[in-house]
């Protein structure tokens, strides 16, 4: 057997071969448990649930990081989804697996917009969503988003009328391959540009159209940089006329 293993591209570590040394065997045992638990499930498995199966005091974070690294170059990767972990196929292998792809209904532009607003501004109320979009949001749009299980009601804002606040779900993270909400694409840049605020940021300015000289004066390099980073330049646009 050891010959075959040596020849294998994915050999087991030698630690396992003469596996009598206590700590290594113990770690292997734990790794196997972690693998089995997460592998068996389609849904991400809560870190707590894994910890419950391991000896008390196990550094589960380190253990999971190790397993994650072991699978980093494999066909299947260990990914973190919020407080949970899941095995997912490596994203470069999507072409292989089209057969498994589930045809999902595509969300309307309006629904996508509301979803993005909820993701980036959460917790956010319906009134705030409407303020951002400048249009009344139909109840149906929120229902559809809730139906996707990407959006949930979080609670109520402590303001008069106690409006419901919306946010994203772990399913949302799972679906879009995000470890946590903080990993939303462009989040830092949007924050830096003040575009996630409800008020115009203090340093926010647009050039006055009737005053080209002012345009120069009003050019806030910080704002301009941010806008470029945000990808606000639509494809094909030179933007510097």
């Amino acid at each position, binding site marked *: 057997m050891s010959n075959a293993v040596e020849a294998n591209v994915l050999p087991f570590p030698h630690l396992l071969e003469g596996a009598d040394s206590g700590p290594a065997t113990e770690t292997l045992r734990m790794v196997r448990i972690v693998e089995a638990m997460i592998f068996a499930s389609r849904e991400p498995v809560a870190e707590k649930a894994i910890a419950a199966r391991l000896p008390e005091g196990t550094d589960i974070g380190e253990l999971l990081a190790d397993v994650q690294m072991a699978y980093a170059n494999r066909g299947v990767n260990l990914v973190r989804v919020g407080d949970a972990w899941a095995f997912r196929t*490596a994203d470069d292998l999507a072409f292989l697996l089209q057969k498994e792809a589930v045809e999902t209904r595509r969300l309307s532009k309006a629904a996508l917009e509301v979803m993005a607003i909820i993701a980036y501004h959460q917790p956010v109320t319906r009134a705030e969503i409407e303020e951002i979009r400048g249009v009344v949001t139909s109840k149906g749009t929120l229902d559809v988003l809730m139906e996707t299980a990407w959006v949930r009601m979080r609670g109520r804002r402590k303001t008069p009328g106690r409006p419901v606040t919306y946010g994203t779900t772990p399913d949302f993270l799972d679906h879009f391959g995000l470890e946590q909400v903080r990993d939303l694409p462009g989040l830092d840049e949007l924050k830096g540009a003040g575009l996630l605020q409800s008020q115009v940021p203090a340093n926010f300015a647009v050039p006055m159209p009737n005053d080209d000289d002012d345009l120069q004066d009003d050019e806030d390099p910080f704002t301009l940089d941010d806008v470029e980073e945000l990808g606000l330049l639509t494809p094909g646009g030179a933007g510097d006329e």
Partner: protein
Amino acid sequence: MNNPTNPSADQETGDLWESPTPVDRTLSDPDFTVDVDGFEGPLDLLLAMARTQKVDLSKISILALAMQYLKFVEQARKLRLELAADYLVMAAWLAYLKSRLLLPAPEGDPEPSGEELANQLAFRLQRLEAMREAAVHLMNRNRLGRDVFSRGDPEPVVIDRKQHFSANLFDLLTAYASQRQRQSVSSVTIARREVWSLSDAREILTRLMGKLSDWTPLDVFLAEYMVDPEERPGVIASSFAASLELVREGALEIRQSDSFAPLYMRQINQNPVPAAQG
């Protein structure tokens, strides 16, 4: 999407999922002359207009944008098109913005300056645009079920349900007693009515006929079988039917003097014919 004739209605009804053939609004309606269909409110319309002006939102002329929008609303009115309230509110606001931008503010004016108002609008446009970009970025990520896949054939956790049922003897007895009690009160048992079958009646009649010396009323004849008044109608009906059969066979005679008068019967050929009774 925005129904101009019904400004108070939801602005998004019926289009929650992307239509299979999305229409490019700017192509179908390059000048935004009259049609607001396909726009999701005034901000969306303004964004589309801004794009015709400049691709870089940070460099658009807010004043030009405001004028373009006001012109659009004017045209719509000329054509007597009803615009959703949102569009008119925006028009009013933009008219105010325009005046603030063009006219110098009086000394000590507490109102926001034209510049501040313009910033406010530019901010809202950029914020909305940023959210749209974000949505596109999100949707272009490697998505679960499309680019990345979960375990196709998961091995479910078998939940070994150890149910512990709680019930004590008192519960049990209470349940039993109360439901029996309930049933004993609510259920009325209808005793089965004794009905003689025709053959039963005939057999009994034949057996009894030997005792008939003379004309005998049927109810007397059957007296011993009619102790229970409930049985009476059934017994009479069955034996009458059976007696008719015996009459047909020539074994019995029956007579009745009037409707509902007592029925008399006697055996034939047993005794000499007696005098008819009155």
